[in-house]
């Protein structure tokens, strides 16, 4: 027990980094995904083509490869300007990656909204902005909530990948602790921390889903 007390501080420091990457990715990729999903539905050929290309590349290649490319590849290709701290490179990569998934989730949700909802809004003279705000957005949120919950939990676990580019997150500190002390307790502590994080998120999303269950 004493040993766990000794390693805990280091692991909690790593947890702070993990949570930073998680929170910044979530906060930026959700609105970006929403806006780009709207653009993708706009029928402007150039834009839909570019967005198709974007989601194709990002969803078709490993996140770890994208991470290596941004952190190590870009400075080799374009020089010092791209030599940014690994943590920022990682956050940017995660935002780019998760936005691609959120675009598809939101697009699917919007496509599932019946046409008559838009038509009723048009008959009531709602502008495009009002239709988005009062009709499209609330219905999309409700329809996509389970998928967003899934992605969010995956994101918590995916952050462990940043340990591969020498960032001292929870995973990296755990691995280093085990290597240094040749004892496995750190693995269990890390597992418990990840479980607590994902459990809290599952709980929060369940509450939101319950709140939104007032209509079918």
């Amino acid at each position, binding site marked *: 027990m004493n040993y766990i007390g000794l390693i805990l501080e280091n692991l909690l420091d790593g947890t702070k980094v993990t949570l930073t990457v998680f929170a910044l990715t979530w906060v930026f990729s959700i609105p970006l995904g929403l806006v780009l999903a709207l653009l993708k539905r706009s029928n402007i050929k150039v834009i839909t083509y570019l967005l198709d290309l974007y989601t194709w590349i990002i969803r078709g290649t490993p996140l770890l490869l994208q991470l290596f490319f941004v952190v190590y590849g870009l400075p080799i290709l374009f020089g010092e300007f791209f030599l940014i701290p690994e943590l920022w490179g990682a956050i940017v990569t995660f935002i780019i990656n998760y936005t691609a998934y959120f675009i598809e989730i939101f697009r699917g949700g919007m496509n599932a909204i019946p046409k008559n909802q838009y038509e009723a809004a048009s*008959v009531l003279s709602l502008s495009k902005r009002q239709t988005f705000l009062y009709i499209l957005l609330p219905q999309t949120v409700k329809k996509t909530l389970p998928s967003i919950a899934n992605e969010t939990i995956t994101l918590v676990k995916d952050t462990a990948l940043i340990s591969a580019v020498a960032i001292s997150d929870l995973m990296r500190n755990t691995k280093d602790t085990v290597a240094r002390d040749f004892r496995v307790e750190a693995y269990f502590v890390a597992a418990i921390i990840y479980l607590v994080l994902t459990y809290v998120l599952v709980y929060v999303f369940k509450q939101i889903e319950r709140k939104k269950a007032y209509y079918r």
Partner: protein
Amino acid sequence: MYWFMCLNKSNERKHIIGNHMTLLETKNLSKTFGTLKAVRDVSFKVEDEIVSIIGPSGSGKSTLLRLLSNLETPDEGQIYLFGQEVTDLNSKDKLTAYKQLQFIFQDFALFDHLSVYDNITLAPIKVFKKDKKQVMDEALSVLKDLGLSDKINSYPSTLSGGQKQRVAIARAIMANPKIMLFDEPTSALDMESIDDLKKIILDLKQKGIGILVVTHDVSFARSISERLLFMENSSIIYNVSLDNITDHQGRLDKYLK
């Protein structure tokens, strides 16, 4: 600028003839989907009266109604709303021009995520920017008239077909329409609800709202309308007043099987 104002004035004058006001008029309206000519060269008027369009399914009557409600754009011809030509307006001006035309969808198209109260007050508050207190008073009175007072906080998915339709009518009334269009209003109703609907429509007419109904239910159309339009193969083939319907009994019989 001056010529433009003159033009507007003459337009305004044109739609008040005698005591009757032309709410809606089409001239040579046509719409094609691919190779299918859904509406062909349709011209007619609706004054402050109840008019029904009847005809077999596939005759183009629903498409015609969607053209009149700005849900489809015509390929040819003109639509005049309250004397103003609206066919060539940009989409923003169209929204304004169409504020006093309301359309009751066959499936009612209530907003699933909003309560009955929010469904009917969304447009008055957000679009017409009316005072919330005034909107509430209006909403309560409209819901009471339509027998929906106890459904004010219900969600659409918990309502029956007849109740949904009345909410859709309440939502339309809250927009202060001069004309209301109904697409197949009896299709989801039992006999009792059809009687209720007749009363509601006649009541709306009493309040000075013009009514245009598209239906395949000829007896319903006959029981409420002052004029019938017969549509077949994408065109209006007869336009008859109920006063001299006997002259057309033979033609009507064809539909009254």
